[in-house]
């Protein structure tokens, strides 16, 4: 598989780049670079794209919607040639990446000693890019298992120390690169039987790094596994480039490497996609259901084509179980398409797996808009999979925010391509993710009840909702961070925090970090809201700024806001806080909460200093404010954390 094979091919990228370079305005050049970064490109074109964007990236215009992130690379090999690929892939994924490369081989000094340049850069993400040649474990080949174990443990202890320093000094999210083999096996298939063989040691190190990273909240850049899925494994490293310039990753592979790094950076900022939208005919079954009928389509065992489509369905269903929302967008008669789900015995995807089902004769761009609206997610959360190149092309043109992968002609390769494209990279996997698919199905059931009810209050009461509010602890941290970084619509301030920053807030005894869950008679909606409140220099002592208030749109219109405010006021009173100050910072996406605070009885006040234009401020006294009616039972523990600590 060619690198970046899922990106469409430009008619003449070279000419487009030359033309773009003549644009005078840096912001416009950057905008052009973002567009062109979405096409398949080799490392030379990627380098040109990086230069095209460079000036504009110094101060990206707000209209481009790029999320800024500072990434430092501390490496034991040459990585400078990889930086353009990382930045350009970042552009494609909506990120304005500043990349700092510490001097080659100096990673220990940078973290353990003084590195003023790194400190001034203030990295939010640190990529620790080490290789197998760097401080190798070199034991006699006949060393016993215990000796290898001990040496590996020592190396891991050192790594964990470095990770801890990175967190303590910079509050940065650490990404550890796994080791890739530097030399061919000495023993062939027998290698693993010899504990001190180089490959055995490497495998052991990688396993230990994975385990330690899981415990320490460190993310992994798994070059070896990623590249293995790409086909020829020798594509990643090139011994000639290693001897010539100590490049672990060959420049040829820089575009793919850059994408691997950028997708992790994107996930840290919550920029990953959330929803897989599938076409039906010749995408999840062979043939045209409207013409061929349920008996005529190819799906299921006993025939190679049918097996291949079944494998595609299984992959999509597995993504659904992982928490990716599944939807259908197909030109079909709705009843005919639904009947295939209901009646075809070999379907791996069930109708209940599909959260939004658009089968009609309208254009697909319109249907995709409808799906995004119905699921309360942005178009930039969608991935649309369609076997028809013409449909793909139209959707790319009409809806540039939707990711539309190129696909090979053979459906047998669809899962590989879809997986390689890395749309759904994540920084955590929680029970909530696993439950999400069920939750969307339950939402459909709630919707059905609502449609039969004429009285909204009665409906809400009938849901028997229970809201649970807990201070964010280790268990809630990953999902809370995920929500902070990916919630765009019901989000008053759209402040983004890394997991390390969230943890610092949660541990601050003067602040409040609440994770809020909601259950009802249809099931657990999971962790659906995060509220962060803290003192602020712009406020009087004894007042809290509501730094962040966000909520999943899945529970809109259920009076969760009212119940949340009640909890928040109780906590504030317990902490001796006299007033809550709420801010609304408008973005292109959060118009739905412009009236959030006045609706909850807050009163307007004068703007605070040093706030972005358009920020509106409200306050509410913690005593004497009238309670709100809501049909939600509260389960909340309110302890004065300051006094319990002392």
């Amino acid at each position: 598989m060619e690198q970046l094979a899922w990106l469409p091919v430009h008619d003449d990228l070279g000419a487009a780049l030359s033309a773009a370079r003549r644009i005078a305005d840096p912001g416009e050049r950057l905008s052009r670079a973002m567009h062109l970064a979405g096409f398949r490109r080799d490392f030379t074109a990627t380098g040109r794209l990086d230069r095209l964007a460079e000036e504009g990236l110094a101060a990206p215009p707000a209209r481009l919607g790029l999320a800024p992130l500072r990434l430092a690379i501390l490496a034991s090999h040459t990585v400078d040639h990889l930086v353009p690929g990382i930045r350009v892939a970042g552009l494609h994924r909506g990120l304005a990446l500043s990349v700092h490369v510490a001097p080659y081989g100096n990673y220990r000094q940078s973290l353990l000693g003084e590195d003023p340049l790194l400190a001034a850069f203030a990295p939010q993400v640190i990529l620790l890019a080490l290789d197998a040649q760097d401080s190798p474990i070199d034991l006699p080949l006949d060393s016993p298992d215990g000796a290898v174990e001990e040496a590996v443990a020592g190396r891991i202890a050192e790594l964990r120390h470095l990770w801890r320093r990175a967190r303590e000094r910079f509050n940065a999210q650490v990404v550890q690169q796994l080791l890739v083999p530097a030399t061919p096996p000495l023993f062939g298939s027998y290698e693993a039987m010899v504990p001190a063989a180089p490959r055995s040691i490497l495998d052991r190190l990688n396993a230990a790094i994975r385990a330690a990273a899981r415990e320490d909240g460190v993310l992994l850049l798994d070059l070896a596994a990623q590249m293995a899925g790409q086909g020829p494994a020798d594509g990643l490293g090139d011994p000639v480039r290693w001897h010539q310039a100590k490049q672990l990753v060959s420049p040829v592979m820089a575009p793919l490497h850059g994408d691997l790094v950028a997708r992790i950076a994107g996930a840290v900022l919550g920029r990953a996609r959330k929803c897989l939208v599938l076409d039906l005919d010749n995408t999840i079954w062979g043939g045209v259901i409207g013409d061929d009928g349920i008996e005529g389509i190819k799906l299921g065992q006993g025939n190679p084509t049918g097996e291949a489509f079944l494998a595609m369905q299984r992959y999509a269903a597995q993504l659904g179980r992982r928490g990716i929302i599944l939807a259908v967008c197909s030109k079909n008669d709705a009843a005919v398409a639904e009947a295939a789900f209901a009646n075809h015995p070999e379907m791996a995807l069930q109708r209940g797996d599909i959260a939004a089902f658009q089968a009609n004769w309208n254009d697909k761009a319109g249907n995709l808009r409808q799906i995004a609206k119905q699921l309360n997610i942005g178009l930039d959360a969608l991935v649309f999979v369609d076997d028809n190149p013409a449909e793909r092309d139209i959707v790319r043109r009409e809806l540039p925010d939707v990711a539309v992968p190129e696909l090979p002609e053979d459906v047998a390769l669809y899962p590989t391509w879809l997986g390689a494209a890395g749309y759904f990279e994540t920084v955590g996997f929680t029970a909530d993710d696993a439950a999400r698919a069920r939750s969307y199905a339950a939402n459909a059931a709630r919707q059905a009840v609502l449609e039969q009810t004429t009285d909204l209050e009665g409906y809400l009461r009938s849901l028997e909702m229970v809201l649970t509010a807990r201070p964010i602890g280790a268990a809630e941290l990953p999902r809370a961070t995920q929500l902070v970084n990916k919630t765009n619509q019901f989000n008053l301030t759209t402040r983004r925090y890394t997991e390390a920053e969230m943890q610092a807030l949660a541990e601050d005894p003067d602040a409040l970090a609440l994770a809020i869950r909601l259950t009802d008679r249809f099931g657990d909606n999971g962790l659906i809201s995060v509220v962060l409140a803290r003192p602020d220099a712009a406020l009087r002592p004894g007042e809290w700024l509501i730094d962040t208030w966000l909520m999943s749109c899945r529970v809109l219109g259920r009076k969760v806001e009212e119940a949340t405010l009640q909890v928040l006021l109780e906590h504030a009173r317990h902490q001796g806080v006299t007033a809550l100050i709420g801010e609304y910072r408008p973005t292109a996406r959060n118009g739905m909460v412009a009236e959030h605070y006045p609706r909850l009885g807050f009163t307007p006040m004068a703007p605070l200093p040093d706030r972005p234009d358009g920020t509106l401020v409200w306050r509410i006294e913690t005593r004497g404010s009238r309670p709100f009616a809501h049909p939600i039972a509260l389960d909340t523990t309110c302890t004065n954390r300051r006094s319990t600590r002392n």
Partner: protein
Amino acid sequence: MHEQEIYAELTQVFRDVFDDDDITLSAATTAEDIPGWDSQAHVNLVVAAETRFGIRFRTAELESLHNVGDFVQLIATKRKGA
């Protein structure tokens, strides 16, 4: 492949790598003559030329690439019969 064709193709490689459509090459052109031709750009040139001409330079050959003339001669040798 004639030397002239190699020069034309190689010129395009240089223009792409340095993002400069005004670059012209002669046999005597060296790193001194082209702003930005540092050691990293040199590796980029080697890799871009390999991709463009469908060849591979051996590690030992890399040491002999001092000017554009060296590049062209080596490419010509490798392309012989191709």
